[in-house]
């Protein structure tokens, strides 16, 4: 036997293995479909058990291991097992939700509860268009666990259901309540005798004063410049009313180039033109810019209400970070100065193919109980979508300013959801345009043009499912 024979024979062996490879190649997309008849857990519904939880059914919970940690979830799980002692809970935590869970979705064996959050979040457009999520309407109709006489829906803050709804179906429970605004240090302002400006001209005047004092008025997350799209869009909505946001969310033609958006972009261009932004900001990421702000190198920064917990380690004592709404453009604004963007965030979902859907919904009911929500607020210093659940809980300084701002905003609060509908539009396209705009490389007209071009590319892409929301 010579070398050539061996080669020939091993080639034959390779051929033999090829059909096996062919079989394997089917499995990435092939599996799953027929596993629907796998056992699902369903108990009998009763007044005590409105969702029909099978009391000994195991429940699997996957938590995003981000800023909130996982201790709060373990507490919720303990509350669940208190009610269903026979249920075994499998808890895990990861930062890579998408990569970890994708094979399990395909396989048709996803966990029962998923905290789909963070930069490794699974795009909701994809999940919803593939019917991968269980509807949560039954949860809304169920009575609250510990607020007597109210259904779960009655206990939620306004807007909590809308933001998790796709074409009117409630699919995603956004658990935290987040306000987006402009932050400053109350200590710095008191020390210098400055006060937060309520309209744009005063804001610019204040920026001048701050700059003269040797501090940069603004900084922002240059590597994630979409943070700056939030105050800009907020300014436009306060000027033109909530329909500005609806048009953007519904991908209406030229929504980004509406008069309100133009005026707002022109106004914000001022802080770029007058060099009110900390040098080097375009090269900072969110942590670096927030840290520069905490060190007093800049006076203002745009962020959501998670800022305080994210900066916990580097905030000097007595810094007293304070959130404020965006300044009004003028007396012609449709919404008052107090109006602020408030929205439910931190998404949780029950996959449609989870084996214990009822258990997942019941877990949500536990989270949304007053006890569950209060425990969360205590543990991670963040508000929940449960109305009034922060009452009686001692809040850190920044969060208490968020509560005040939300109270003052009341029914004038507004929000937009295009970032949930079309993740790519905010994360990639508007993000890139903001980077160019706030570093001064393009002007307001080109900025809106680039955003509009991004929105149009989404609108024209037939492979992306489109959603509409009512005004």
């Amino acid at each position, binding site marked *: 036997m010579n070398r050539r024979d061996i080669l020939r024979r*091993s080639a034959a062996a390779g051929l033999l293995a090829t059909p*096996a490879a062919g079989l394997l190649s089917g499995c990435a997309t092939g599996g799953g479909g027929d596993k629907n008849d796998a056992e699902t857990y369903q108990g009998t519904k009763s007044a005590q058990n409105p969702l029909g939880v099978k009391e000994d059914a195991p429940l699997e919970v996957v938590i995003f291991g981000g800023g909130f940690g996982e201790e709060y979830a373990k507490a919720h799980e303990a509350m669940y097992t208190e009610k269903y002692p026979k249920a075994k809970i499998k808890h895990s935590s990861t930062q890579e939700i998408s990569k970890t869970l994708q094979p399990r979705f395909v396989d048709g064996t996803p966990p029962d509860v998923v905290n789909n959050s963070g930069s490794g979040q699974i795009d909701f457009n994809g999940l919803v268009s593939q019917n991968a999520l269980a509807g949560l309407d039954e949860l809304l109709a169920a009575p609250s666990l510990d607020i007597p006489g109210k259904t779960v829906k009655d206990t939620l803050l306004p807007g909590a259901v809308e933001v998790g709804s796709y074409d009117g179906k409630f699919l995603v429970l956004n658990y935290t309540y987040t306000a987006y605004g402009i932050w400053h240090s109350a200590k710095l302002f008191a020390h210098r005798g400055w006060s937060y400006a309520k309209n744009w001209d005063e804001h610019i005047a204040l920026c001048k004063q701050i700059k003269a004092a040797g501090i940069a008025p603004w900084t922002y997350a240059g590597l994630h410049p979409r943070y700056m799209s939030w105050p800009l869009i907020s300014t436009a909505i306060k000027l033109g009313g909530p329909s500005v946001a609806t048009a953007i969310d519904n991908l209406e033609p030229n929504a980004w180039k509406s008069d309100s958006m133009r005026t707002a972009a022109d106004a914000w261009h001022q802080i770029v033109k007058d060099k009110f932004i900390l040098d080097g900001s375009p090269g900072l990421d969110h942590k670096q810019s927030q840290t520069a702000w905490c060190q007093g190198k800049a006076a203002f920064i745009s962020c959501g209400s998670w800022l305080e917990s994210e900066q916990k380690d580097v905030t000097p004592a007595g810094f007293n970070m304070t959130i404020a709404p965006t300044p009004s453009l003028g007396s012609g604004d449709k919404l008052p100065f107090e109006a602020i963007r408030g929205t439910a965030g931190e998404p949780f979902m029950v996959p449609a193919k989870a084996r214990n859907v009822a258990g997942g919904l019941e877990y949500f009911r536990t989270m949304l109980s007053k006890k569950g929500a209060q425990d969360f607020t205590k543990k991670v210093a963040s508000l929940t979508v449960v109305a009034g659940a922060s009452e009686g809980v001692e809040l850190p300084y920044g969060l208490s300013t968020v509560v005040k701002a939300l109270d003052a905003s009341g029914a004038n609060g507004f929000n937009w959801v295009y970032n949930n509908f079309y993740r790519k539009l905010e994360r990639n396209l508007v993000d890139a345009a903001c980077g160019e705009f706030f570093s001064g490389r393009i002007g307001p007209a080109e900025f809106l043009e680039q955003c509009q071009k991004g929105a149009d590319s989404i609108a024209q892409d037939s492979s992306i499912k489109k959603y509409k929301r009512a005004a």
Partner: protein
Amino acid sequence: MKHGKWPLIVTFLVPPVLLYLVFVVSPYLQAFQISTTDWLGYSADANPVGLANFKALWHDDYVWNALKNNVILLALVPVLTIVLGLFFATMLALGGRKGSAGVTGVRGGALYRTVYFFPQVLSVVIIALLWKEVYHPNKGLLTSALHGLGLPSPTWLGDPATAFWCVLAVMVWSNVGFYVVLFGAAMSAVPKEIYEAVLLDGASRFTTLRRVTLPLLWDTVQVAWVYLAIFALDGFILVQLMTNGGPNFSTDVIGVRMYDTAFGSETKFGYASAIGVVMFFLTLSVAVLSLRIGRRERIEYS
């Protein structure tokens, strides 16, 4: 010995071949199949769409932009890395001229070798994070150095005009060390007599490198070229960690585009697989081309 051969072949050949088939060949085949579907990655439904993904690719400006960056990397990273690698290796192996006692390296060669090889020991992730801090626009090493000299400094990774070159520099920096060692090893296989003869003829160090070392090392250089070309077509980890393709897509590469399409801002696994298939053929053709073009007579020492 005859009857003992088969068990040996089977035990040593079958497991690796099987592993290769399962973990390398089958995913490739699968990617080809998925690239012809509209699979969105989170259900088992995927409809065949033929070549629609490839057609969309052809009209996708973002993909073309990423590809353009890859082409620039392909043109520059191998050349810069090999030139620097050869230069350092020559200096370490035969750069010394002071002693005049024959062919030696520069003084402190061992130290240099360690320093050059250092990036190779670090994980790519650490390299990316390290350089992100070096490029920090306010307190980074580079900015501080420039400010110390009284010079203005750019915002490095924050400016589309500089970000790409910053990433390219890191790519070269992190690769050079390995090729210094590789070329150094190849040089030590070259008989010393040749260099001694060259030295007697009075050739300068540059002529020695160009006329003697390079031709003798051609095989190794060629291998380096293929590796580096494949690296330049990928470049994913460094770019993803340092800039994630930004600002304004100025550092985008095809690997980041693929990742972003599947796991980032969208879940279009079908489309991402199509990008992967294109990458597969690009890498394959670059490898074949550089092997073909670089083909020369092999020199054997006897």
